[in-house]
């Protein structure tokens, strides 16, 4: 057992940090949030391609398919750095699509749909995600394609099809535009998950032909879907309540877990970064004749932040190694908490400056809120972990 990072893993993490410092410096982030709201929040295609060329979306893709040939731990380390830099964009969905596509797990659709996903590996395609759980869709206007997850099935559909029926909202995070997909506005809680996926305009009782969202498949583009590995909808999450209708296995479940983990990795990066920001400020800012970091009240806030970040790190890294659903639920839960609460404490340490737009602290907090609502949210993670307590008596921690 050697849980520490290998030299190669350290080098990959350092390389990613260096690339982001060079290509996505703070000035770029600030330009995105300080400029015009509409323009600034668009995914920077050039940067996206550059990240693709650097292998961000191809880390798990086999070398034979033009990828880097590494695993989930490496993807997690890279995503941690992306979270640290507050890199905007639908990173997880694009990575997942690239991985699916290269693994041949997307069945052959028509040529147009195939070309939608083929570019994901190289960062030529921006893919966002639509989960049936009701989460908002990020960066929809910039996206070429949407990775749509039903209860068990997965498909990739053109972004335009989703965009036409989705409603743009004024996102709390200035760097993450959000859309509310239509079906979730109207479906009562608990009703929607009974169906496989959002069915726009399908009359009640009409059996869906396909499992994932159909937006009338415009332009004759058939969705590219995951090769049929149909698994009966188990319909049981942790308690049988909170996650009704979402299968615990099957391609969609697996993608959800990977997305949750890659999102947790970004939360971890943000949580670690806000510790640094708080400590830097506490050393620099002087009141009552000494740095505020010399006061225990401030020191103890900072210490608590480090504890949260390091606890989250240990489970996020472990989940990347084991890929166990329970580990991933713990990782998402603790990383969400670390990111949100560390950003809150960082804001507090910054005092009045923390409340300004000019400070970066609010960007970490708002992004952490966005990510906490994506994929496995706290209630789902806690229910899954609770169920694990009853089913894994005497099992490994």
């Amino acid at each position, binding site marked *: 057992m050697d849980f520490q990072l290998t030299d190669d893993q350290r080098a990959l993490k350092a390389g990613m940090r260096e690339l982001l410092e060079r290509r996505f410096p703070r000035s770029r982030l600030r330009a995105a949030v300080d400029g015009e709201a509409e323009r600034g929040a668009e995914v920077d295609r050039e940067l996206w391609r550059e990240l693709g060329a650097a292998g961000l979306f191809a880390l798990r893709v086999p070398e034979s398919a033009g990828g880097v040939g590494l695993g989930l731990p490496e993807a997690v380390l890279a995503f941690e750095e992306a979270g640290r830099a507050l890199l905007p964009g639908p990173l997880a969905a694009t990575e997942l699509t690239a991985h699916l596509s290269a693994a041949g797990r997307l069945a052959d659709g028509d040529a147009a749909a195939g070309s939608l996903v083929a570019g994901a590996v190289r960062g030529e395609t921006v893919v966002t995600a639509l989960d049936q759980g009701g989460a908002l869709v990020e960066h929809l206007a910039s996206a070429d394609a949407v990775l749509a997850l039903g209860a068990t099935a997965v498909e990739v559909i053109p972004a335009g099809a989703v965009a036409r029926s989705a409603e743009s909202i004024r996102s709390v995070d200035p760097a993450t535009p959000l859309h509310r997909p239509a079906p979730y506005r109207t479906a009562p809680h608990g009703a929607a998950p009974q169906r496989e996926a959002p069915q726009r305009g399908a009359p009640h009782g009409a059996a869906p032909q396909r499992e994932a969202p159909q937006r009338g498949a415009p332009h004759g583009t058939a969705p590219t879907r995951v090769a049929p590995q149909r698994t009966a909808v188990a319909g049981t999450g942790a308690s049988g309540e909170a996650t009704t209708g979402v299968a615990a296995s099957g391609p969609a479940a697996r993608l959800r877990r990977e997305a949750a983990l890659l999102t947790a990795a970004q939360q971890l990066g943000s949580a670690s970064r806000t510790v640094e920001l708080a*400590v830097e400020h506490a050393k620099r800012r002087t009141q009552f004749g000494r740095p505020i970091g010399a*006061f225990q009240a401030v020191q*103890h806030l900072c210490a608590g932040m480090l*504890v949260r970040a*390091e606890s989250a790190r*240990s489970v996020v890294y*472990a989940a990347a190694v084991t890929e166990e659903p329970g580990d991933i639920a*713990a990782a998402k839960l603790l990383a969400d908490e670390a990111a949100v609460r560390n950003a809150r404490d960082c804001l507090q340490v910054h005092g009045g400056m923390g409340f300004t737009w000019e400070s970066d602290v609010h960007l970490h907090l708002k992004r952490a809120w966005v990510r906490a609502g994506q994929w496995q949210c706290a209630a789902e993670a806690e229910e899954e972990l609770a169920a694990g307590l009853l089913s*894994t008596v*005497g099992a490994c921690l």
Partner: protein
Amino acid sequence: MDLAFTEDEEDFRHRLRAWLADALPKLPDPPHPADWPGRRAYDCGWQRMLHDAGYAGLHWPEDAGGRGVTPTQHLIFLEETERAGAPYVGAGFVGLLHAGPTIAAEGTPEQRARWLPPILRGDEVWCQGFSEPDAGSDLASLRTRAVRDGDAYVISGSKIWTSHAEIADWCELLVRTAPLNADTPKHRGITWLAMPMDAPGVTVRPLRTLAGTAEFAEVFLDEVRVPVTNRVGAENDGWRVTMVTLSFERGTAFVGEVVACRRVLEALARTAKAGGRWDDAVLRRRLGRLAAECAALWRLTQWNVSEAQRTGGVPGVGGSVFKLRFSQVRQELYEAAAEVLGPDALDAGQEWVADRLSSLSYTIAAGTSQIQRNIVAERILGLPKGR
């Protein structure tokens, strides 16, 4: 990032499991918690069994009579013994984890030969005389005086929070051999001594904790004579000598406790399920969250052990971070237990109620959470010295 065990490690685990399966049924019934002589006999008997099977002093260096196993093997040992329900180190704690390693690192060959083998065999029990009524978190301000008189030190003062004092043969004692004054740092002038507990002038008074049991004692010292040959390290160098013990801490200090946390949590879930409380989503989610916390403690442990294995010594960041999280989670666990128990949470005869009371010491003992946060802030985050 590799959580898989090597063939050697798996082999170690399997041999240990086989031995535990054979050895544990041979143990006598555990003594009543208030029966101190019985507890000593039980704990020492278990240590003797470990010794005879080659499992004594696993983490001690080989030249000190230990086995010199890797931190990972030590982790496996602690995990497996806890899972198998083996006895806790108990009365052997100070000897095996503090005094022994200190003597192994800093003692003369004669001192090592005199004191180490009886610790490993379970023949002699040690206690710790560090804290004083006026020197708790600020340990270096301790005042128990030792004055040189010929070939002995004459010691007067008092110690507190001394576990196992009633049944100990020896006490690892920190005394002041140079007066406290403004000119010299207070951690200079401290000396480490091995004091026989049966020496004239030693009085032990048990301290009753809020749990109602006498887990600690006060030790009063009235002109106790301790031979100079019982001094480990140089006079006035006792602070450094004591800190050396820390280099034996390899991230494994709470392995058994973390395994136990998970076991308690699973039992809580089963109890809640059986009693109909599982339908309460608030309680269910609370237990789910604690499962994540337990997972984090386990992974942090593996992280720290791996770090110690690489550096061969002190887990830098890990110790205080782990301790802070662990002590908090342990207390939250028993708060949740009280909710599961409902009205029975007021029945002090319930195991979880007793454990709930004991858990209140976790954020105080072995460095309060406030001291741990100071350490994290100053030594890890590099913030200025606190006020």
